[in-house]
């Protein structure tokens, strides 16, 4: 067995069925061995999209996603995708080819120190210098990527190592004495949490991606119901709780739901689970829950106290901790005060429901998102790109299940949504997959239309066409005297023709009702489709301006109840 074959064998042993990649000079040996192997390879049209697709696969399935690129430019093209996965704790394994060991350091053709380049954005990396090391390194990479706080792992394989014969296939895990993630929460801390909960009169829960990653959504729901605490989420926490539930308030933060942003500071206890309190979630720190006790549950001790001061930390896996918390809360009944608070918040949720009903032309993005949610089943996966399109989706779409809302949160990577949808579709072939994109971001990755066509992947790309780099345009409108510097996209391209040139059918949508019908048809046809939805470029979500506190949103928050 040669090194490349050992890579394939090891991946198969890890349960991998599909990898996303793009070949090149230093991976030709690997690709030659792949030719005969029974593992699927999706040839993306840009390596960045291989990483995003692996990431989308991982987020949709909870399993490790794998991407592959050649040395030098192939490897550097992965960097944005690796960084995106790192910021959002997504388990991917990125395999790169490298120039032969004897040429490393000589500035050989297509040599890049990809280990060095990615050091700050990977959880760990390996470079096997001997084919015998490959099985162990791959197995260990999967172990590191998927346990504790997940994240990307890079394996950089010199060309001659891909070609070299193994003397034995030994996939013993590499010893990593410096890696011991805490899983079980300290029971004394859990009991203290129970006591704080019992003392609280106005408890709230803030759920983040950690809840979804640790598959703790049932435990979260049980906790929320037991203690009758309303639940808000971070952007990446969407889906941790069914957002149509009375107790679910929706997203908190810079473009958060009004009910969440307005009432978080009224709470006397905040139970934060699997969140890292990003500045986009909290607003200015000194006016974020200034008088509220905070319990912070997270698997990464470095997140505790990093941004928000915490009264009670519990380090460990969210699911483990929530289930022991639920156990020690057995028999607990919330007081009348707690119930009054919950009732008040529930009533506010209804009162402050954002307006989504419009019959305007050009279309209001709110209405487009509303129609998308009407057309999709709770099983459907929605990925977003970055910008206004992302915030509209996050704000107006009620996500009902975990792993069904996929978005680049930490890095905010334009061009993420569409390739992530490709990965999600591979992970969940039976679930409809829709990506919501801006017209700017979609152009960064539109070449992947070739991929969805080639592999008949019925991914639906919705392009919200506002002819602007809307999010930046919005900031310029609100904060820079409407000086729209370099944010107007002009009138090219024709997205319908663009899609059709790839053999992907497309439709331009301009009126209310059309989005829903077109989506329903696309889902029924089970074909890749692009919907070019022309929207009102002047529409903007209320926001926290830089330096503002969480309850200091600017811009008019239009309410559904005001619709006559």
């Amino acid at each position, binding site marked *: 067995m040669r090194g490349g074959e050992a890579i394939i064998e090891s991946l198969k042993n890890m349960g991998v069925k599909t990898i996303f990649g793009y070949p090149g000079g230093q991976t030709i040996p690997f690709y030659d061995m792949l030719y005969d192997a029974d593992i699927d390879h999706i040839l993306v049209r840009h390596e960045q999209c291989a990483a995003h697709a692996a990431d989308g696969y991982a987020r949709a399935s909870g399993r490790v996603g794998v991407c592959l690129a050649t040395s030098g430019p192939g490897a550097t093209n992965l960097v944005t995708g690796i960084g995106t996965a790192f910021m959002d704790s997504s388990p991917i394994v990125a395999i790169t080819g490298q120039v032969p060991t004897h040429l490393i350091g000589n500035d050989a053709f297509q040599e890049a120190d990809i280990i*060095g380049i990615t*050091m*700050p954005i990977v959880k760990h990396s390996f470079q096997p210098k001997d084919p015998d090391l490959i099985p162990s390194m791959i197995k260990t990479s999967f172990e590191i990527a998927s346990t504790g706080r997940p994240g990307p792992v890079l394996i950089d394989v010199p060309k001659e190592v891909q070609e070299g014969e193994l003397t034995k296939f030994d996939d013993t895990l590499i010893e*990593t004495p*410096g890696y011991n993630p805490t899983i079980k929460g300290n029971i004394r801390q859990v009991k203290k949490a129970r006591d704080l909960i019992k003392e609280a009169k106005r408890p709230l829960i803030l759920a983040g991606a950690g809840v979804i990653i640790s598959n703790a959504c049932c435990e979260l729901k049980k906790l929320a119901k037991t203690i009758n605490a309303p639940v808000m989420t971070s952007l990446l926490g969407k889906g941790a709780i069914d957002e149509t539930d009375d107790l679910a308030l929706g997203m908190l933060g810079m473009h958060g739901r009004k009910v969440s942003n307005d009432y978080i500071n009224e709470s006397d206890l905040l139970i934060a689970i699997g969140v890292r309190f990003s500045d986009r979630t909290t607003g200015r720190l000194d006016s974020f829950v200034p008088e509220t006790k905070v319990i912070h549950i997270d698997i990464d001790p470095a997140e505790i106290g*990093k941004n928000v001061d915490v009264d009670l930390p519990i380090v460990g896996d969210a699911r483990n901790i929530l289930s022991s918390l639920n156990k020690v809360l057995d028999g607990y009944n919330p007081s009348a005060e707690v119930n009054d608070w919950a009732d008040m918040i529930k009533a506010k949720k209804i009162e402050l429901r954002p307006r989504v009903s419009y019959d305007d032309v050009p279309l209001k993005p709110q209405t487009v998102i509303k129609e998308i949610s009407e057309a999709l089943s709770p099983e459907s996966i929605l990925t977003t790109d970055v910008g206004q399109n992302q915030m509209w989706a996050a704000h107006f779409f009620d996500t009902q299940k975990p792993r069904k809302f996929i978005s680049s949160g930490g890095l905010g990577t334009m061009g993420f949504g569409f390739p992530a949808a490709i990965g999600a579709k591979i992970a969940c072939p039976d679930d409809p997959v829709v990506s919501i994109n801006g017209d700017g971001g979609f152009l960064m990755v539109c070449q992947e239309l070739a991929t969805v066509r080639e592999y008949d992947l019925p991914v639906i790309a919705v392009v919200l066409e506002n002819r602007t780099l809307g999010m930046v345009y919005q900031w310029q409108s609100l904060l820079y005297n409407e000086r729209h510097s370099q944010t107007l996209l002009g009138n090219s391209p024709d997205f319908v023709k663009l899609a059709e040139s790839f053999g992907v059918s497309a439709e331009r949508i301009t009126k209310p009702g059309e989005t829903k019908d077109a989506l329903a048809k696309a889902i029924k046809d089970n074909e890749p489709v692009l919907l070019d939805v022309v929207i009102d470029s002047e529409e903007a979500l209320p926001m926290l301006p830089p330096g503002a506190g969480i309850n200091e949103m600017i811009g008019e928050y239009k309410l559904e109840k005001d619709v006559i």
Partner: protein
Amino acid sequence: MTLKYHIISTLVEDKPGVLQKVAGMFNRRGFNIDSITVGNSEVEGLSRMVITVHADEKGLEQVMKQLNKLIDVIKIKDITKKAVKRELCLVKVNIPNAKARAEIMQYSNIFRAHILDVTEETLMVELTGDKEKINAFISLLEGYGIKRIARTGLTAMSRGV
């Protein structure tokens, strides 16, 4: 926010790139490393790094936690309070005249420094001690004209068992 001086002793895997990872992490998180020394430890395959850094309390906590997250880092300890600190310094100093030579040799004696190399015009002196001692010695020699200084940076170990 008061910055304090801290000595962090870490046990790390003796592998390529580990120094880069550790140093890079400090830089990325906005901390300046004052000094870093690395060498073999008592365990084969593991190195000990001694890092000195200025940080406030919250910053130090964050740095320690981030260090801990590096998979190649096995153990870390803030040994500031109990540390025995040593640094080695080599100085090459001019000798303008015979009197100067005698004085420098005398100072070296007092500081328990060693003369390593002698030429007509220069002396090379080796001194071990904590930062203050070395600084004091260097400032004594400054008047003669220092040609070159090479310092190892601080290494340290906590007292007791």
